[in-house]
């Protein structure tokens, strides 16, 4: 069975999401798969069966959206939902979280290490996939990530992100620094 069909079937069983949200998630997942057909969707396929949408605590300031792998929840800021954010961009970052997270890893962020680089790269990917017609809270992270992609190669970041490999990032950066 085609992977997108599997995702569609698993989404259909999710009791936590409205049909509208399911349609949007399937649309964004399909778009991702068209752009990056070699990236596995096996993790997302499983997580999408019972992923929830939730709100961050009132005093949490972790950006407009985060994906919590432990709770399998895409959390939106309770303060910022009323501001000028692009919901497709936010939802795509949630999708990327489901695709790239595994145990302690979110992309190449393991236990908070390389957190900013991971934020910047997720922002980049979401921009590439769906653009961003709204507010961007991570311009500095985006700029720095772009510079790093030019130092060590964008392909390295791509492989590290989807294979949860932070070691290669450090290795390549240190090679660039000292030879």
């Amino acid at each position, binding site marked *: 069975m085609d992977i997108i069909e599997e995702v569609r079937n698993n989404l259909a069983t999710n009791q936590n999401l409205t049909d509208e949200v399911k349609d949007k998630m399937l649309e964004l997942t399909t778009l991702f798969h068209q752009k990056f057909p070699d990236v596995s969707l096996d993790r997302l396929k499983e997580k999408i069966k019972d992923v929830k949408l939730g709100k961050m605590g009132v005093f949490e300031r972790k950006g407009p959206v985060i994906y919590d792998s432990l709770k399998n929840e895409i959390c939106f800021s309770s303060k910022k939902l009323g501001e000028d954010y692009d919901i497709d961009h936010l939802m795509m970052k949630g999708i990327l979280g489901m695709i790239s997270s595994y145990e302690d890893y979110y992309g190449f962020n393991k236990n908070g290490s390389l957190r900013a680089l991971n934020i910047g790269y997720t922002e980049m990917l979401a921009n590439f996939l769906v653009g961003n017609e709204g*507010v961007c809270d991570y311009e500095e992270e985006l700029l*720095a990530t772009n510079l790093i992609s030019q130092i060590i190669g964008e392909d390295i970041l791509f492989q590290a992100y989807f294979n949860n490999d932070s070691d290669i990032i450090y290795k390549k950066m240190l090679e660039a620094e*000292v030879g």
Partner: protein
Amino acid sequence: MATKTETAFDYMDYLVTAKETNPHQQTDAFAIVLESLSDIRVSQIQRGLCSEEDIEKFGDFLPTTTEMFTNKEMHPDRVAHAHQKYQESVKIALLTSSMEDKDLSNGKSL
């Protein structure tokens, strides 16, 4: 002493924290990140690992860069500030490097 890599990543992560708790420290943290990354890039330049075209592209922060990933909504003031910081860092690093080379060729010790 921390490597430039460690400094860059540590201050990038601090930048995220600063946004959440101490917004007035964002600019300083970002400047340190840029300086560290600039130094690394300059090191590559000095080792001949970059073409002239690569050097030109590295300074191009604008959303119209030829790179695959762009952000069309990047604030122009921040982009200009980052660009300026980068150019200053590269200029200083290359100037320092050429002064060292000159001293060596004159037989002076550093």
